[in-house]
């Protein structure tokens, strides 16, 4: 009743090819973005903006990146954390050595460096696939983190090896570093998330996205109809690593305020893979749903334990968290392999018929 596709006529090619072809969808997304920009910073307090929404948004960007690679192009990667680290460290180098660069440019440059590294580690994907590839991406994970940890050049020969992110402003408002207000950082990250999500949504429905999906569905058949595996796979690696790099740079600059490799360990890579699976492989919306779900779940578990006054040690909660994560992954793969995004779609279909299902 509320959500309908019937009776919406498209009278031009532009309308037929629009990103949101149904007015309700468009209104919903624009409304959501408007709420995120205007209402949330006004209502949200320091804790919600700085410690929940901000990291969840950054992880959404990373999940979006992995979803492009795994969900759309079918190449499983366990090295997401390393590409995030590459973005963070290179952005730090740019920010400290070329101080006049505006901060968004710095973060995009960090992402571009991550993309270049991603292409280098994506090269094996031309010869190997499936879990063989997953294992070789572990090489990126361990090698890059070791490199950033051991070579002091990456941290400008800082004594501690864990430098703080330099404070930078846009239009006179601090957006990075520890002194920036959570609201400013939140808006900054939100802008990145919105722009990158729009780019991703348009990429995947265009020519590039279709070649990715063709390679994912059957690479030999795709090659036979004239899709070059080299360009397609490497472009997926490049775009994916760019997203992860931007996410890593934002994580270091806006959330933890330090540049350290322990933030990007293999556990992070798995977390992001879980976000993609739970959210929905091959869905932009799903990346956001998955990231919020997986990030908020442990917090919710913790809060549930304290609200109900259960005498559970924090350590036990971590263990339960692991069990819940593992169980959820298996559950989603069995019951709903398309993840939360598919549930969302089902909800929309139900709404279309509600309240008079036939």
């Amino acid at each position, binding site marked *: 009743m509320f959500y309908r596709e019937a009776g919406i006529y498209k009278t031009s090619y532009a309308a037929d090819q629009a990103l949101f072809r149904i007015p309700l969808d468009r209104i919903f997304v624009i409304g959501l973005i408007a709420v995120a920009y205007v209402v949330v910073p006004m209502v949200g307090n320091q804790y919600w903006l700085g410690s929940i929404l901000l990291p969840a948004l950054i992880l959404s960007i990373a999940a979006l990146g992995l979803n492009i690679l795994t969900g759309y192009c*079918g190449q*499983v990667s366990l090295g997401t954390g390393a590409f995030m680290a590459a973005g963070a460290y290179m952005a730090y180098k740019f920010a400290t050595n070329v101080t006049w660069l505006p901060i968004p440019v710095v973060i995009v440059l960090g992402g571009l460096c991550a993309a270049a590294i991603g292409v280098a580690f994506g*090269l*094996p994907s031309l*010869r*190997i696939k*499936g*879990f*063989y590839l*997953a*294992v*070789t991406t*572990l*090489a990126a*994970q*361990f*090698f890059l983190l*070791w490199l950033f*940890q*051991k*070579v*002091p*050049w990456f941290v400008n*020969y800082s004594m501690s090896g864990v430098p703080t992110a330099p404070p930078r402003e846009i239009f006179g408002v601090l957006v990075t570093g520890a002194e920036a207000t959570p609201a400013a950082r939140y808006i900054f990250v939100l802008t990145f998330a919105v722009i990158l999500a729009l780019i991703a949504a348009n990429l995947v429905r265009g020519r590039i996205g279709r070649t990715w999906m063709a390679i994912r569905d*059957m690479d*030999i*058949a795709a090659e*036979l109809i004239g899709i070059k595996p080299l360009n397609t796979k490497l472009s997926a690696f490049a775009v994916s690593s760019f997203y992860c790099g931007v996410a890593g740079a934002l994580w270091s600059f806006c959330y933890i305020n330090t540049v350290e490799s322990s933030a990007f360990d*293999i556990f992070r890579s*798995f977390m992001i*893979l879980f976000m993609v*699976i739970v959210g929905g492989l091959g869905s932009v919306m799903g990346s956001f749903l998955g990231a919020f779900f997986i990030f908020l779940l442990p917090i919710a578990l913790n809060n549930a334990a304290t609200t109900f006054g259960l005498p559970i040690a924090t*350590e*036990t909660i*971590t*263990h*339960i*968290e*692991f*069990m*819940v*994560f*593992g*169980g*959820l*992954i*298996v559950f989603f*793969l*069995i019951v709903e*392999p398309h993840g939360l995004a598919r549930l969302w779609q089902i909800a929309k279909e139900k709404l279309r018929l509600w309240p008079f299902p036939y």
Partner: protein
Amino acid sequence: MSEFWFFLEVLLSGMFAGTMYALVALGFVLIFKASGVFNFAQGTMVLFAALCFVGFLEMGLPIAVAGIISIGIMIAWAFAVERLVLRHLVNQAPIILFMATIGISFFLEGFGEFIWGGDVHPLDIGIPNGAWFVGPEGVMLIDQFDLSAAVIAGVLVLSLALFFHYTRIGRALRAVADDHQAALSVGIPLNRIWVIVWSVAGFVALVAGIIWGSRLGVQFALSIVALKALPVLILGGFTSVPGAIIGGLIIGTGEKMAEIYGAPAMESLVTALSGTDSVSLGGVEEWFAYVIAMFFLLFRPQGLFGERIIERV
């Protein structure tokens, strides 16, 4: 001359380390051969089995009883995995199964720590722990523990090979590995075979876990080290038991060599390039295995002894 002996010592200790990886990799190969599932959870199973074993020992049970109960738990685990996970994922893409085993791995890690706690448990079941000094004036050191571990690994591999070759179940396992459908059509129960193979992998995991645990203490942080079995595996080829052993030896020696000889060389290179000193590049071991495996796969995607990959549209 003593340099040569030192080299030999590094070589040997690398090979022993390799047999430890091979022990974990063996479990992967078993499951992959019989069910085509790339079982990411094998490393966690190793630690879970060891943790159960240690847990029972700490309760005061004798070694044999603790071992039998642990094997029982691993068999129960195999049943649970088959019933609750694998059965529902038949006919899914291999990569979906792979991701499911990542989920299983997380669950098992949480479950194990939930029951037994996250502390490091020391384990001592009487594996000799001294050292022999050989060579002229005893310059070379052989760790007795490493040697016993290698012997245990060898016995395990040999008995598995015999089991596969001469028993009825072993033949059924090989049939399933060759062709699921053909095996089903001659009346081999696929589900039971899966349970058996996961149980055998659980047993291998227990042995590996006991050896690893005696060496390093039983704790789940070891699952990162157990991940090293993956490059061992792709180097040897997924489907080959000897491949797992040889892959383990190559990786084990390679990374010891890289750590002892490669890291100082790289340090001097970096120092020469950047003009700074005090660069320490230790810890090459952490990533070397993966990088070797990556380069290796570029040239031989099916691994050393793997079956040739043939693809059809």
